[in-house]
């Protein structure tokens, strides 16, 4: 953020500028200055190079220095001469910068490399390595570490950092008597892998759908479980890397090793019609290279897609040489179900989900059966009442009379028998509206009869009508607003198999698309035809409300307006509006009752049964879903095609502008290619984690540091290049990176090393004014937790959490309609039923076009992301106040409270959420709010009922929700 930059830079400068006794450091002082001020015009990008001058190489710079022009241009006062020039919007160099350059030249203009391209070395340390470097720096600035955090804070910190969950008050193993065994306990927890996986999934841009237009679902989730498993078994990071790059190429590759390569298939895929597949395929390869650059090497390779890097020593050729490693995958740019290559894989984690859901179905089945049995008696009563009621005949349909309107000027008149006839002008297209009051107690459906007039059904030349759409709306007299009524069912006496965009099927009149609709062409046009429309839900109209039924004739050719029609309404549910022919009660009246249809109609209106049935239906749907997830799945993986493709430099990054052919290679400026490695993805994976590669270990250590401290030692975790920030503690970063490699890329070892430091264990309470951004690490880490962790914590502290590992994705609560409104109904979101609802956020189904709504500030999972965003907005407040999951957690906490002694309740709440007791002052506030809420809900039990609780439970729920929203509850302290 530009506004913060100056302070930042100043501090960095003061941090890194050594006393003048030391010679000028090229990598710390000269290079950043050249990079910021000179290289955008005098770097390696020949396309933008000015005056044929290079300052990014020793040769170029020395040539410039020899000419003597170098300093003269910098200190010039002539606006035509001075460098950087005013039109670059870069300010002239400051006096101390000029002095530094002069000293550097005087000292012989030593050349070197950018810091991150020098191999890291392990400096000698005394005591804990983390504390050794941090304290040394603090001492330099006259500061020291903050005191150790209180035990409950430290326990929370460790528990969130290592498992993503709060300490459990039931779990005595996490008692704090022995720090080392607490840490051991936490890193051995199966939740450790889940916690680590969440960040890795962000980096891997993992999602459960393709993204783009069709956004089809994919079944790559077994790869997610591979990641969890890998972290839990502490797979060495170099092995983890190799498997994800080249698991398929390893000798005797296991299915899991092949599965690992899904990492490089987690990019979006575009199945948009009209898209050139080759362009898509190139996009995917580019995405892999960029992701590799960011995740493993902290390099912004994306720049070099179009031109050589302006700042870092990566050329466009280098970029496409890396591209070549991924360019011969046996893929063709397709998406959806054609995104080969696939691994056919059966997940060991799915059976648990099947069992869990089977139990749910088994539990709900008898409830549904009982509800049905319980309905038998009321049904008989209802039937005998009906029998009496219909003995003098029964009419289900009531003809609608009312006002008629035509959009385009047809003259509509209605006769006594309700028949509407069009006459007068005959526009090409027209909308008819019938506005009518309804006398029925409720409306469940409408009948539309299209009636022949002189042997024709329409006023058009061929006598055939096309009804493109119908609309049903309600208007209150005197109100400006109209509301749409959802019509869900449509059936006609003419059955056709029409395609989505043809005229024929009556269902086409429900979708607002003028390219399909109902016509009876092909059926006798001298006969009447009937369509039935069933409402999604029965509609009760107030006495001052009227119904608007609109018939739209907007077909492409037009000239197909209905000539004559009649509309009737009914209050009969179920079969009456979904099946053509006499309604069940009409049959009953006629002495030909059909028992099944009568029962179906009765049950339709029998709320207890409908509730039980809906609940069972949802469980059954979920069972079907997890059963299919338990079978063989297609997981997108890497596999080489038989004939490798030629790889070209793409001119300006454009997919079909092919330049030079390049071979598989790596940027020499980073590390040379070891001679013994095969030129394939195995070689690439090994090169990335070779001891000669100066970047990978540093970059990963920095990601871990960021996870624990909220910010990395390099605060631009995605950019270790010249334009990224320099490490605050370069020697510490190097020590940890070397140690990580020396210990066989042991991730748990690295984490344990950091969290056992005094630096990590400091209190985070007070920010030292001399270190406002904690760059010097003068206090412990303090930051708002990621949204997923807040949700998981609420589930865990309320006891709702289902701790199961792995398996098919689940659908946590989301506000209604968020998928539907994006896709206009193409995808619907059914929240998971039963224990599946309370799984960790890691398992939440991730639709790329609409990420889970409760995950604010989260990575978007479209391209790889390793940086963290943390904002503080009113929308987040609303989420935490009103999200259904937060409300459920509050209710569950309230139930726990009510199970305890009255005086223990508020302390229990604090202990559950914050791992500590409330102070007396806090207790006063909590008690006051509890009393206030209790008074309200006792006086207004109807409000408690709306919350599906008793007054006591409602009041405690509100207080629990308040505590879950405390800053302390959502902050890593």
């Amino acid at each position, binding site marked *: 953020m*530009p506004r913060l930059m100056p302070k930042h830079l100043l501090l960095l400068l003061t941090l890194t500028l050594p006393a003048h006794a030391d010679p000028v450091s090229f990598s710390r002082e000269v290079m950043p200055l050249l990079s910021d001020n000179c290289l955008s015009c005098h770097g390696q990008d020949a396309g933008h190079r000015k005056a044929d001058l290079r300052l990014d190489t020793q040769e170029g710079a020395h040539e410039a220095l020899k000419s003597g022009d170098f300093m003269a241009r910098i200190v010039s006062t002539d606006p035509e001469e001075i460098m950087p020039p005013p039109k670059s919007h870069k300010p002239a160099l400051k006096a101390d910068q000029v002095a530094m350059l002069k000293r550097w030249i005087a000292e012989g203009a030593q050349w070197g490399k950018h810091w991150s391209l020098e191999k890291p070395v392990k400096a000698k340390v005394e005591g804990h390595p983390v504390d050794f470097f941090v304290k040394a720096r603090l001492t330099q600035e006259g500061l020291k570490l903050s005191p150790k955090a209180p035990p409950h804070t430290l326990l929370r910190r460790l528990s969130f950092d290592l498992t993503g969950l709060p300490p459990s008050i039931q779990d005595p193993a996490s008692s704090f008597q022995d720090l080392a065994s607490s840490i051991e306990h936490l890193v051995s927890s199966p939740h450790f892998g889940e916690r680590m996986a969440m960040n890795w999934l962000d980096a891997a841009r993992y999602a459960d759908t393709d993204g783009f237009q069709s956004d089809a679902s994919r079944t790559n989730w077994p790869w997610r479980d591979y990641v969890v498993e890998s972290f839990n078994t502490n797979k060495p990071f170099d092995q983890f890397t190799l498997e994800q790059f080249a698991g398929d190429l390893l000798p005797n590759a296991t299915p899991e090793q092949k599965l690992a390569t899904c990492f490089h298939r987690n990019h979006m895929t575009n199945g948009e019609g009209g898209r050139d597949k080759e362009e898509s395929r190139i996009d995917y390869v580019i995405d892999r290279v960029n992701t590799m650059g960011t995740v493993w090497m902290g390099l912004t390779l*994306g720049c070099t897609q179009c031109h050589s890097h302006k700042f870092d020593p990566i050329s466009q050729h280098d970029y496409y040489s890396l591209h070549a490693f991924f360019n011969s995958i046996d893929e063709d740019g397709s998406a959806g179900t054609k995104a080969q290559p696939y691994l056919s894989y059966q997940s060991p984690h799915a059976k648990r989900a099947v069992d869990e859901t089977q139990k749910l179905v088994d539990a709900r089945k008898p409830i549904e059966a009982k509800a049905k049995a319980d309905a038998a008696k009321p049904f008989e009563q209802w039937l005998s009442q009906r029998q009496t009621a219909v003995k003098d005949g029964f009419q289900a349909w009531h003809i609608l009379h009312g006002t008629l309107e035509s959009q385009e000027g047809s003259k509509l008149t209605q006769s006594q028998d309700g028949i509407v006839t069009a006459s007068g002008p005959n526009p090409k297209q027209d909308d008819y509206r019938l506005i009518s009051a309804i006398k029925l107690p409720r409306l469940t459906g409408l009948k539309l009869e299209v009636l022949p007039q002189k042997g024709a059904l329409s006023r058009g030349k061929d006598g055939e009508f096309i009804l493109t759409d119908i609309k049903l709306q309600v208007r209150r007299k005197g109100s400006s607003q109209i509301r749409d009524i959802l019509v869900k069912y449509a059936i006609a006496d003419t059955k056709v198999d029409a395609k989505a965009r043809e005229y024929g099927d009556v269902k086409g009149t429900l*979708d607002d698309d*003028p390219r399909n609709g109902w016509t009876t062409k092909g059926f006798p046009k001298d006969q009447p035809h009937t369509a039935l429309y069933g409402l999604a839900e029965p509609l009760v109209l107030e006495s001052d409300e009227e119904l608007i039924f609109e018939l739209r004739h907007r077909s492409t050719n037009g000239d197909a307006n209905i000539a004559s029609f009649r509309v009737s309404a009914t209050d009969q549910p179920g079969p009456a509006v979904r099946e053509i022919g006499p309604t069940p009660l009409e049959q009953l009246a006629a002495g030909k009752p059909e028992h099944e249809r009568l029962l179906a109609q009765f049950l339709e209106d029998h709320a207890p049964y409908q509730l039980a049935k809906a609940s069972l239906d949802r469980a059954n749907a979920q069972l079907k879903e997890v059963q299919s997830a338990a079978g063989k799945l297609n997981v997108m993986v890497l596999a080489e095609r038989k004939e490798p493709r030629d790889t070209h430099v793409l001119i300006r990054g454009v997919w079909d502008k092919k330049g030079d052919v390049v071979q598989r290679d790596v940027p020499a400026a980073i590390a040379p290619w070891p001679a013994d490695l095969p030129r394939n993805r195995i070689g690439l994976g090994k090169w990335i984690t070779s001891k000669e590669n100066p970047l990978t270990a540093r970059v990963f250590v920095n990601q871990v540091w960021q996870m624990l401290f909220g910010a990395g030692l390099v605060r631009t975790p995605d950019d270790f290049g010249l334009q990224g920030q320099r490490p605050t503690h370069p020697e510490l970063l190097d020590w940890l990176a070397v140690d990580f490699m020396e210990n066989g890329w042991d991730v748990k070892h690295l984490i344990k090393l950091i969290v056992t430091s005094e630096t990590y264990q400091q209190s*985070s309470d007070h920010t030292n004014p001399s270190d406002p951004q904690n760059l010097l690490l003068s206090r412990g880490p303090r930051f708002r937790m990621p949204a997923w962790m807040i949700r998981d914590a609420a589930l865990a502290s309320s006891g709702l959490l289902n701790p199961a590992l792995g398996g098919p994705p689940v659908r946590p609560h989301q506000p209604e309609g968020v998928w539907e409104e*994006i896709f206009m109904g193409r995808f619907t979101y059914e929240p998971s039923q039963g224990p599946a609802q309370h799984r960790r956020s890691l398992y939440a189904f991730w639709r790329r*076009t609409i990420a889970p709504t409760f995950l*604010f500030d989260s990575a*978007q999972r479209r391209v790889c992301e390793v940086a963290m965003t943390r904002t503080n907005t009113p929308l987040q*407040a609303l989420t935490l106040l009103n999200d259904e999951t937060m409300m459920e957690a509050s209710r569950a906490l309230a139930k726990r409270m009510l199970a305890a002694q009255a005086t223990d309740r508020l302390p229990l709440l604090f202990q559950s959420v914050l791992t500590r007791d409330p102070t007396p002052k806090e207790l006063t506030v909590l008690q006051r709010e509890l009393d206030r809420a209790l008074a309200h809900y006792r006086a207004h039990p109807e409000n408690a009922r709306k919350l599906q609780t008793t007054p006591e439970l409602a009041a405690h729920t509100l207080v629990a929700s308040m505590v879950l929203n405390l800053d302390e509850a959502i902050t890593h302290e």
Partner: protein
Amino acid sequence: MSESSLNTTRRYFLGQCTGVSLGAMALDSMAQQEITGLPQLPHFAPKAKRVIFLTQSGGPSQLELFDHKPGLMDWAGKELPESVRQGQRLTTMTANQKQLILPGLTKFSRCGQSGATISEWLPHLQGVADDLCFIKSMTTDQINHAPAMTQFLTGHQLPGRPSMGAWISYGLGSLNRNLPDYLVLISKMQRPSDQPLYDHYWGSGFLPSRYQGVKLRNSKDPVLYLTDPAGLPRHLRRGMLDGLAELNQMRFEQTQDPEITTRIRQYEMAYRMQASVPELTDLSDEPDHVFEMYGPDSRRAGSYAANCILARRLAERGVRFIQLFHPDWDHHSRLPSWCTARCRDTDQPSAALIKDLKQRGLLDDTLVIWGGEFGRGVAGQGKWDSPEAGRDHHPRCFTMWMAGGGIKPGITHGATDDFSYNVAENPVHVHDLHATVMHQLGIDHNRFTFRSQGLDFKLTGVEPARVVKNILT
């Protein structure tokens, strides 16, 4: 909106808080110091204070709506000359068919003093022609929807960059502390749309997420999670937030973490939004003549027409960037039924919005933009002479219009060749449009950058972009 009426609005919203609470007090003292936007912005005096962007998703056909080419009648059914096509890429939907010319299917009129050519399918827009500035020489690089719309709104075809509204919200900040700076309204349609509207279209990309567009939904929760659960009355929520603020304040006193103070403030803003947003989205206080002006569909919540009224209400309340989306302009077939359907949805309300803003004196400093991500090709898709015919995507030229906000009214800028295929004069690239919009808001697009992943990004990208000076007042 004048400064004084803004202040009235502000007082009005602050008046919504009932009772004096710690949270509200913390807020009051902060209100004055609230810094909005970047200190270096605007670079110069702006002509427009806010933007209403009427985004027409799918690619409206310039040939049927604005770009009148009567000469095409002579070419009907003939193959598009290669001298015109010049190797233009086609989508794979029509790449394998002959490019046979389909002349525009509508009658055009010359409208108003300016004589702008507007289709018979847009009768209401014809009536406001003299308030509009047509750009007939728009051009883009992308030929498929998602990349083209992404470029149209974020300057780059791949998702991940901030949308124009996010840039502007980040740069200029808020004029109304009770509402987000960037609001998005999407027409409620019944048909599953072929082009979903991804939330990255109004995303903040690498900018902090508070700058992303907030979608106003047509549902009981106009903003996600806005509504308190049933059974939780307002005064209890107030009390709970007071308790929350008190407890948070205790924590602040212990830690001095300024994030806590911000959090207290944001919970207060959330509380105020719970009142201000429903007030805003409830159109029942609009008089009948307004609905009559915007057309019958405006009475239906969630329609494009109702959203146009909402856009005006948001403009009145000082929201910085208001973006409407109307989907389903992707007319590959059956132009006469399909394209007219979308014209019916949008014609009267778009025209009414211009009139309404003008009547209220808001048009002068509100920049209204109408357009989609690309245009449509002159060749018929499907059998060219059948009513079934449609048109494929066309990136080389398309028409947009703008109004108000310091844009010259009643002019047409740029022109296409006789086939509405190539830009013949004054091309305006999507990036030039971005530069121009920013310019009207007082921003030099070249000096408005954000550093991410080691690069200084700007909305207008790396290729030079220019402000379209000829259309400015």
